[in-house]
């Protein structure tokens, strides 16, 4: 890295990370790499979990959010339980995902972001998630032709009565929507 910039943007991001439960721990990162070594998907990431914190400190976090890094986190919490500094890394990843969505940076290919958005939409509509609807929305917004590859599985599930053809709306849907709206701020959708 040619130079290190701790600009206002990075400071704002750091403040956001510190505001999540236990987020203050981010400041205590030792750069030991235990997170990267523990992560089951770090081998496929453009930047490893350790490098995310380094990038944050160097003012390069937008580069990370534009890459295929944070959306490859599967939420297995392996890094979180092993981090010697006690950083809740999976929660840090969630905050970075939210930041990316806010800034229109959905990662390089955007598939996992599309899935998360489809999931949220289904819950907002029904109070529960309706899997066939989510899968349909997901392929519609990503690579529709790839849905063909899922037809075989859909048929096997259908034969066993494992496909819910109709969505179930909870009775308290209206009040749930009002609760969700009441805490809605600028983050995300």
């Amino acid at each position, binding site marked *: 890295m040619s130079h290190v910039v701790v600009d206002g943007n990075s400071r704002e991001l750091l403040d956001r990370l510190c505001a999540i439960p236990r987020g203050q721990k981010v400041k205590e990162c030792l750069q030991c790499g235990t997170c990267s070594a523990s992560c089951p998907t770090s081998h496929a990431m453009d930047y490893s979990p350790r490098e995310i914190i380094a990038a944050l400190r160097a003012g390069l976090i937008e580069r990370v959010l534009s890459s295929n890094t944070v959306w*490859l986190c599967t939420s297995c919490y392996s890094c979180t339980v092993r981090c010697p500094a006690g950083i809740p890394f999976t929660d840090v990843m969630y905050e970075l*995902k939210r930041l990316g969505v806010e800034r229109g940076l959905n990662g390089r290919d955007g598939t996992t972001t599309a899935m998360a958005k489809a999931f949220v939409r289904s819950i907002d509509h029904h109070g529960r998630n309706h899997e066939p609807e989510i899968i349909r929305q997901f392929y519609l917004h990503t690579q529709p032709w790839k849905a063909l590859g899922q037809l075989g599985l859909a048929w096997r599930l259908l034969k066993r009565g494992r496909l819910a053809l109709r969505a179930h709306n909870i009775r308290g849907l209206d009040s749930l929507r009002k609760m969700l709206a009441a*805490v809605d701020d600028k983050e995300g959708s």
Partner: protein
Amino acid sequence: MSASSRRRMLYFPGCSLMATNRAYDVSARHVTDALGLELVELDDWNCCGATAYIAINERKSFVLSARNLALAEAQANGGTGELAICCNGCYVALRKAEKYLAEDALLRQDVCRALRDQGMEYRGKARVRHLLEVVVNDCGEQAIKGRVRRPLNGVKVAGYPGCQIGRPFGEIDDPEYPRLMERLLGWLGAEAVPFPLASKCCGGMMMTTQPALGRKLTGRILRFAREGGADCLATACPLCQINLEAYQDKVSVVVGADCHVPVLYFTQLMGLAFGLSAEQVALGDNLTSSDKLVAADASGAEESQ
């Protein structure tokens, strides 16, 4: 078992168990019933938000969990408000909300106000528990061993409770080397083969969003189970279940090794050991065949008599 000694516990099935993974729901209700524990479904529960909602909006995801916890408190009927959960994803989402709402005053204030405006109260009294832990700790060794009619003698099982059962808090099982499943399998007469991948990630949603990566992760688990001599895998999470059972042909190609192995919920194995019928554990729902397993189980039962 007399009616008076029956226990009741609130139960949160979660969206997956409504259709795609209903075999988990069916078998869980039957085996707990056989142990004198009645699962009472939480009325009008909503989705926990899983790992997706929190990736888009944090506070809203905590509202989803808080509403479920508030329902559990309201429906506790003078009981403890304990909520048994089958799905690892739901378990972590609700347990995390329970913990963070207790720790973070600002978060609690925002979320509780949103609920209160809709006539609901969350007091921090509900207790989230995973069904595997309820079965092992509350029902216990004696009751489970005593209920076994057809011990799974000679059946080798790779116990795979998954990543989110012991993590992130490590409260009910070791985050690295989980033991609950292994102990339970032993009580059923099965042989739990050493399975170091018991807490490794199955890939979760990556199986759909990043298939190449997802197949690598499930491939590692399936291959290791086979190479360890397992006759089947036992899961405790609906997402692990479908990831491991649905793509074995493709995964075998990616991994370059035969990855075909039956995948069952731990509740289905309990049911088989209890002598319940295939219908009572919805064995026909599974995408992998358990025929050989059931045959081995039957011959094992004969040997033990």
